[in-house]
């Protein structure tokens, strides 16, 4: 699934380094860290402002991907085979060229995504990460006690459903494909997309 890696990417793989963010991202990061160090801005207050707009980046992109997968079995097959390419088919590209992997909820398995190290997040499909996704408690507990975390989100899964936790990296990010709700056979693709929530695609909600 990494056959479309650019040479550039391989170079970094070879050096065992990570692909650096864009010039803009690096400059914002530099500004933010320097201003935080000088006590001129408060990181928690910055988060609060960003959080207020978190749904404003690419809010429906991921929902369109999920709806297409439910609607079109051939698309679903391509998505499961190579999510990066299938998502790009719908025109959603961006970020630092990280690869996407789609993980599908089934009657027997529930998927949940975390980034234990930092807050890697597939923003071209999901928008800005919610503050809880970046919080230390979520990042540490999601792996150790995923059922407990899900319970905090109001999701109780029967023991026979396996919970799979996927830890994102700078290079590989995950999109949860929720189960298509029952009784939606007659809905159009647009109507299906309206049912898909952000948390459903992170795996902290069931549809």
């Amino acid at each position: 699934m990494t056959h479309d890696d650019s040479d550039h990417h391989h170079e970094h793989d070879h050096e065992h380094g990570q692909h650096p963010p864009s010039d803009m991202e690096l400059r914002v990061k530099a500004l933010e860290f320097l201003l935080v160090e000088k006590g001129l801005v408060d990181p928690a207050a910055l988060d609060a402002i960003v959080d207020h707009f978190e749904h404003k980046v690419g809010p429906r992109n991921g929902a369109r991907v999920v709806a297409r997968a439910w609607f079109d079995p051939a698309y679903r097959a391509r998505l499961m085979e190579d999510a990066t390419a299938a998502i790009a088919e719908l025109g959603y590209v961006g970020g630092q060229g990280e690869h996407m992997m789609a993980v599908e909820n089934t009657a027997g398995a529930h998927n949940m995504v975390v980034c234990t190290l930092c807050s890697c997040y597939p923003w071209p499909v999901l928008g800005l990460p919610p503050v809880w996704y970046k919080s230390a408690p979520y990042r540490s507990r999601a792996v150790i006690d995923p059922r407990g975390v899900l319970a905090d989100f109001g999701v109780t899964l029967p023991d026979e459903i396996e919970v799979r936790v996927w830890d994102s990296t700078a290079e590989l990010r995950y999109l949860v494909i929720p189960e298509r709700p029952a009784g939606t056979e007659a809905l159009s693709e647009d109507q299906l997309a309206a049912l898909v929530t952000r948390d459903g695609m992170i795996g902290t909600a069931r549809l």
Partner: protein
Amino acid sequence: MSAPDPLKLPGLPRDAEGPVFAEPWQAQAFALTVQLHERGAFAWSEWAEALSDQLKAAGPQDDGSRYYEHWLAALEQLVTAKQLAGAGALRDRRHAWEAAYLRTPHGKPVTL
């Protein structure tokens, strides 16, 4: 000092509910600006002028897709003019982060 109203800035990408961002760094730059103003680092009129200067320099053929690039340039310019951070320090820090990404193995946290 009047309350900032980012929505009145000319050319701001927005929908009915407020500003929209194409990438997370744009929201970060937006939040930094709003908070620096709220904490008294500069007047909103100073910010509006700094941004307007950058947008004017971009010329009339600029289609708005690079709005936040101009925003970031304006913020860097104002922050250095106000001596909140030095231009050299910003540049050094930017390069330090880039180097940190390049030397940090996959799957490890990036730190300076």
